[in-house]
């Protein structure tokens, strides 16, 4: 019996590798699952980019799902993502909130003026303090928050038509189904 031990140990390894191959076909290698998914979005209160005297808090956005898109005028990949948001943002059927991250307000405004503004609302986190609560790695990142204020989906890196189709739309549909 003990002679079969190496064989069984090897079978366990094979099972693990088989799982690994399957897992890799299902998952993007760069995807780091956010521990925040399924949890309430952190509390925040941030000034509006166009009118810093006005602030928006998490509570103000409750009730309907919204997409929080982290961007910066300094961020190269955001430039790639931007045309996608311009083309498809409105069609998603949710409020699109721009989260301007570690950016000069003037530069951000200029950037949006030049490339177009896909957002319904843009809030500014100049210092990047609140972003820490969100676990932002860098820009661009996108969070889908439902009407109860729970993070349902997160994307690290730019949204592409493919990602929107494969990941974001199913997540949106799941929220829509729950809504009474």
């Amino acid at each position: 019996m003990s002679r079969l031990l190496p064989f069984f140990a090897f079978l366990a390894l094979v099972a693990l590798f088989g799982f690994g191959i399957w897992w890799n076909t299902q998952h993007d290698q760069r995807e780091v699952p956010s521990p925040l998914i399924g949890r309430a979005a952190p509390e925040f209160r941030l000034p509006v980019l166009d009118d810093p005297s006005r602030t928006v808090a998490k509570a103000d956005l409750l009730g309907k799902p919204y997409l929080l898109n982290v961007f910066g005028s300094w961020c190269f990949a955001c430039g790639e993502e931007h045309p996608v948001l311009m083309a498809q943002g409105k069609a998603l059927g949710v409020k699109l909130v721009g989260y301007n991250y570690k950016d000069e307000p003037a530069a951000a405004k200029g950037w949006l003026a030049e490339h177009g503004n896909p957002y319904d609302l843009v809030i500014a986190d100049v210092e990047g303090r609140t972003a820490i609560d969100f676990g932002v790695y860098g820009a661009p990142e996108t969070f889908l928050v439902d009407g109860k204020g729970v993070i349902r989906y997160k994307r690290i890196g730019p949204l592409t038509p493919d990602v929107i189709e494969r990941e974001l739309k199913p997540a949106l549909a799941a929220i829509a189904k729950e809504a009474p």
Partner: protein
Amino acid sequence: MIPELGQLALILAMLLALVQGVVPVVGAWRGNSALMSLARPMAAGQFVFVALAMGILVHAFLTFDFSVGYVAANSNLALPWYYRITAVWGAHEGSMLLWVFILNAWTLALTIFSRQLPEAFAARVLGVMGFIGLGFLAFIVFTSNPFLRELPMQPDGADLNPVLQDPGMTFHPPVLYMGYVGFSVAFAFSIAALLGGELEQAWVRWARPWTNVAWAFLSAGIVAGSWWAYAELGWGGWWFWDPVENASFMPWLVGAALVHAQAITEKRGSLRSWTILLSLFAFSLSLLGTFLVRSGVLTSVHSFASDPRRGLYILGFLVVVIGGSLLLYAVRAPKVAGGRAFAVVSRETAVLIGNLLLTTAAAMVLLGTLFPLLGDALNLGKVSVGPPYFGFLFNLLMLPVVLLLPFGPYLRWGKGDIGVLKPVALRAGLAAIVCAVIAFLFVDAKLKAIAGVAGAVWACVGTLLYVIKRWREMPRGRRFPAEMAGMLLAHFGVGIFVAGVMLSESLSIERDVRMEPGKIVQLGSYDFRFDGVRETSGPNWRGDEGVVTVMKDGALVANLHPQKRTYTRGQVQTESAIDAGIFRDIYVALGEPMDAGNREGAWALRLYQKPFIRWIWLGGLFMMLGGFVAAGERRFRTQKTRSEAGATVAEPAA
């Protein structure tokens, strides 16, 4: 047309491998000499056709045949000819071809040097080699064809990964594969012995030189890889516990255990099952390494190629080869513990302890390497253990190895006398303490450095004491047979390696500095003056080259020119500048300009002073040399094929 011939050659080689893998084994089973005699011509034919395919791929690279997808993806018009040749194994398809080519070279060597083996045994060994060749050739033909056309033809190709455009990379993969693939010989011998049953006890003697050579090549390959990472990656590190490095290190550890276990089994007849199991493990880990690198199961800095279909194929192949061989082991491994008994205090016990530590270390590396995968499987999230885990456990396991190392040779086979160890321990220990105290005067309270000096002196002096003992007590000509000399060289290498690792890790100084032209920064006892950056270019890159003058007490030590190259396709690669020395390396890497627009201004530079780092590779080279020298043992070449294992005169210890 020519590339299609290459593909045809591979298909023919695959068919020959099929014949070689099946017919001689059936012949050995049936006792049919005609069938068995097919093994050698098939092996030779396979070698010819695979060599032809290699030649055709080289030709395609040299003649810029960008209609071949693999050539277009890995070279371009500006790539110099020598890197176009190494580009042959610069990516997945070609490196698999190299794998098979080297397997064929080993098989060819076997056909030449196996004439004195019993007919049936040789037929089985060559059959197993053919079967392995079949697996890899089918893999290439069906999933990884390097000759695949890509039409319309590109006017110019992409580029060879610039990380690979380095002299170290020209011979790192071939040498590493020589080692990896070389363990297939020990594997084939074990399988043949299992198939043949108890009759073939002498197989271990026949297998020993092959195992030693394979292990020596693997040592050389790992040293080359480590050196390449050091010189090329620009981080000043020499080992990263990266999955791909681990993939080569695990077979090395098990191979080191195997080299020792084979010695026991050959001379004393004991531990036969363990030796067979280790042979199976060594090659299984080589295959596993290929799987890990090629399947994309684990991602690492060097996974250059990955594709789930290929992963599934290799996994299936692993199941057949490793699973099959372990099952065969379970059924056929020697049932009775054979060989001569040994006491608790004996050379066997010493070797066995070393064996267990080495295999445990390999298992530890395997576990650490697979940990991220386990994390996914058990839903723990993305986890990886990283260098602290490896560094801590590996040192813990290697500490007793280094402590026991000098004692092995002094103990007799069978029953040793612990008394003979006392003077050795006393002298080597005294030397270690004295040197540790001297080291303390130089380095202060850096415990790791002092421990390194003590460990290295302990291992080296212990080994040298044995050299002196042999010199005094044995008659001329019998003092240092090749096997003994190889062992001593390798053990001495361990000491040097320990010194290199511990001293360079504890005494290295590094600084990230901002330097304006003309600025002088002091690091350790050296002054570094930065004289700005100039433009430079090579055959297929343009770059910035920093001018750094290193001085000590006002005297010039070295002019260093670290580069930051931009290759034809826009990939950026640092090229660190190193002033090498036995006792220290000075290492400078060029970072970025502090102000992107102003190349005349300040730059970020990384300066290192790395004492004794070269000893790491020197130790590895000693171990390699030991492997090669031991393989030259005369006893392995004599014709006593039928002698009982253990019947030879045991190595006298006094």
